């Protein structure tokens, strides 16, 4: 008997609706408020001593509310990084770009930005010292950090 195809492919489109996310904006609001004055602000848990940047209003480890605002240094240590050798479509880049995470002195968490101050990307390694390079005119936005500079 001839086999009849039982499975069909149905093209379908999941048209995602508009959602209204509620987010905990406090931590990032504090961060960009500090950025305007070229400062890196976070919160410290008085119970366990952890310094969070950006600083949430409760400690993940102690499950306690935290409200001590602290300023950390704009110098820090390179934690980890990745090197993009191609753009998002796969075209090779003339100059690779490095996206880096760094732990700024006084903080227990990492911030991310582009890394500059290297000539050969193969020489970049974790543990290098970095400094935040600010925009001339900061406006209270994440983009106030231009990049991290190897020092």
């Amino acid at each position, binding site marked *: 008997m001839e086999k009849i195809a039982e499975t069909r492919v149905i093209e379908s489109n999941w048209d995602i609706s508009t959602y209204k*996310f509620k*987010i905990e904006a406090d931590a*990032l609001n504090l*961060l960009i408020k500090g950025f305007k004055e070229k400062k890196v602000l976070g*919160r410290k848990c008085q119970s366990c001593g952890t310094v969070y940047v950006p600083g949430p209003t409760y400690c993940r480890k102690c499950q306690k509310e935290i409200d001590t605002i602290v300023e950390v240094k704009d110098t820090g240590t390179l934690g980890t990084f990745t090197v993009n*050798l191609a753009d998002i479509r796969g075209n090779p880049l003339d100059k690779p770009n490095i996206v880096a995470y760094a732990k700024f002195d006084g903080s227990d*968490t990492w911030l991310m930005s582009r890394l500059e101050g290297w000539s050969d990307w193969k020489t970049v390694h974790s543990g290098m010292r970095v400094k935040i390079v600010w925009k001339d005119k900061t406006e209270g936005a994440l983009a106030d950090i231009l990049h991290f500079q190897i020092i």
Partner: protein
Amino acid sequence: MARKDVAIISVGYNGRFVSKRPDVSIPELIEPAVRDALRKTKLTINDIDAIAMGNMQTFEGVNSPHLWASDYIGGTGKPVIRIATGGTTGMSTFQSAYYHVASGLYDVVMAIAWEKQDEGDSQVGLGGILMPEVFAMFQFGPDLSEGRGLGIGVGSGGGGGSTGSASFQAMSYLARSGGGIEHIDMIAALLRSNAAKNPYAHLQVPGCKPEDIAKTPIISFPLRFGHTCPTSCGAHVLILASKEKAKKYAMTDRVAWVKGVACGTSDATFGNLIDGQITDPAEQVVATMVAKKAYARAGIADPQKEIQMAEVYDGFAHQDLMWPERLLLVGDGKSPEMVAKGAYNIEGDMPINPSGGVLSTNAIGASAMVRVGEAALQVMGLAEGGHQVPRRVRNAVAHGWGGLFQFVTVTVLGEAPVQ
């Protein structure tokens, strides 16, 4: 109330994992694995008391697949629970089935985990995990030129999918352990060639060499195509039974006893840009915490001596080096040395992923349960095609990992229940 002894009495597959199965629907993909698992026991579908089923949320665009598959899996008239916990989905599903039996509420329970990635858009599914973060970031003025302000979300991770974010973990792991990219190449080649000995594995490359891996294109340095997993379609089924029912329904006395399960969660340690939770992605404290809990429950005091093999969740090859350390199967920073001297080979002192791992087969919702199934086959001595560990496997450990680098599951199996 003491927990009851539970055994895995059957391990079922729908066949070899592949990229695309346009010939079948989701229920049709799963059903042969259910039949395969039943065929390897004296059970009929009517003897199954309850079913736990898992796959990734939104990957196929089918929001409630357990609903459409309920009759194909023999679920009518029975409790069916659906689990979705990201990468750990498969092992969460297995552990749910385990709780059903260990609690004494049910005697024979089937765990089903699957993924059919050709039907949907896995990157959209993965993006769904991060999109709320990315949209939230838009409220705080990131620099959107060249996507530079969003690094992991768009600029880096976007191009490489989850590889973009895993590359940060890989770099950090190498810095912590002192290993080099050549060690990642070595373990990737080992797993690709292990996969060639597993008839169910997807990406099989017999005799794969580290040089072959090193030739593949870079996605996001240091990770290359050869260091990453494929997207697979397939289904995996485990049947769990109480001691009495295991005796009655298992084909032989070769069953795998579930000695200890544990599961743990950290905050979204990586990628959570709102709450300031970014910490070292290679630290993975929770993995060690969970492993210790599982070993204690399994009565294992010295994992390096008492455990003979491991199946770890390795979407990326550097994780085959990182997880054995975090799971205390080897000393901290010792993996590069172990892989270089062949200790992670099938014949080695501590075989890691003889099946080829997630690195060679990634039907995501199934992947963490395949770790349990493959560890069970090793304990039973039934791994086919040449990937059976030659020495006696008294205890094996299976590990799952997922979420935003934050969920961990560990299961210890053995040839005898905990005394």
